[in-house]
């Protein structure tokens, strides 16, 4: 039986059209719908399924961020996590919060909570860093199974199928370990209204990064954030001959 720590991040909802701030310092987050990072939902789902299969004894959800991060934690609790830890990071510190800080916080918490497994989403859909799992594993000196699309427990070890370029890789690791969830790992359940209500009764602990002894000084400076290039407009052509000519020109036929 093991204790599972799951990292969840509050990000701008995947369906929202992102707008870049005019001064290129970042993206507009005020008044924008936020929700749990989709890859973290998959991580939570996997941890909850482990608990349902009696492979895990307890699922602890962790989120670093301002007070609104608690809403994300409630979603994790509604999906089936047992308790939550909110690491409060607000204001300027939150603006420059980077994977290295989150990894340090997760590493510290997993030692404090005596976790045997850390599962996070492979990357967040806002900064797309894809670093937290790897850094956490390095800080803890635990094995890592990143981009997992299948996790099986076989007597004290884990067999992990990883999504790699053009195929799959199967690895075996000992426990404790750090895992990151890929898209095909599972289909996360929907946090239903009654479960959201029940989640309000589950314990949520609030700590600060200072309590954990983690220095939040930024290591990376964001120089500029820009919109991706705009897709070029299409054109309507009069007949099939022109179409064929255009396709030939473009080298498609």
């Amino acid at each position, binding site marked *: 039986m093991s204790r599972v720590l799951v990292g969840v991040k509050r990000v701008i909802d*995947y*369906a929202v059209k992102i707008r870049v701030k005019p001064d290129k310092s970042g993206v507009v987050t005020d008044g924008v719908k936020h929700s749990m990072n*989709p*890859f973290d939902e998959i991580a939570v789902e996997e941890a909850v399924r482990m608990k349902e299969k009696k492979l895990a004894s307890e699922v602890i959800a962790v989120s670093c961020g301002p007070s609104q991060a608690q809403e994300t934690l409630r979603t994790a609790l509604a999906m089936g996590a047992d308790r939550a830890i909110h690491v409060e990071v607000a204001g300027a510190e939150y603006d420059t919060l980077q994977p290295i800080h989150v990894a340090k916080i997760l590493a510290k918490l997993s030692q404090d909570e005596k976790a045997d497994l850390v599962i996070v989403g492979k990357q967040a*859909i806002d900064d797309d860093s894809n670093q937290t799992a790897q850094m956490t594993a390095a800080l803890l000196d635990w094995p890592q199974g990143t981009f997992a699309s299948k996790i099986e427990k076989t007597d004290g070890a884990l067999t992990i199928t990883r999504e790699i370029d053009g195929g799959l890789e199967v690895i075996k690791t000992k426990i404790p370990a750090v895992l990151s969830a890929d*898209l095909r790992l599972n*289909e*996360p359940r*929907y946090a*239903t*209204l009654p479960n959201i209500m029940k989640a309000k009764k589950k314990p949520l602990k609030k700590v600060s990064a200072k309590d954990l002894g983690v220095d939040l000084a930024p290591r990376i400076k964001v120089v500029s954030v820009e919109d991706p290039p705009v897709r070029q407009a299409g054109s309507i052509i009069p007949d099939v001959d022109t179409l064929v000519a255009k396709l030939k020109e473009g080298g498609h036929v």
Partner: protein
Amino acid sequence: MAQPHRKAVLNLYKTLLYLGRDWPQGFDLFRKRLHKVFSKNSEETDPQKIQIMVKHGEFVVKEIEALYKLKKYRAMKRRYYDDN
């Protein structure tokens, strides 16, 4: 008059309203339509018919959940996995 299905109907309405917050065309449209459907059938008194309607409502809830899941999965797949 006793209304044995009152609770089930209310629960269904609340659940659907909650789901409507994520509706792609906006919550307002969803709420209007939802309200229309419920008020259209509000005069129904046959318990059997009400039960069938509630069953249908529960089916719709499942469908909407599945729709959201699929929509999110497809968006992620398109953004991160489709090279062509």
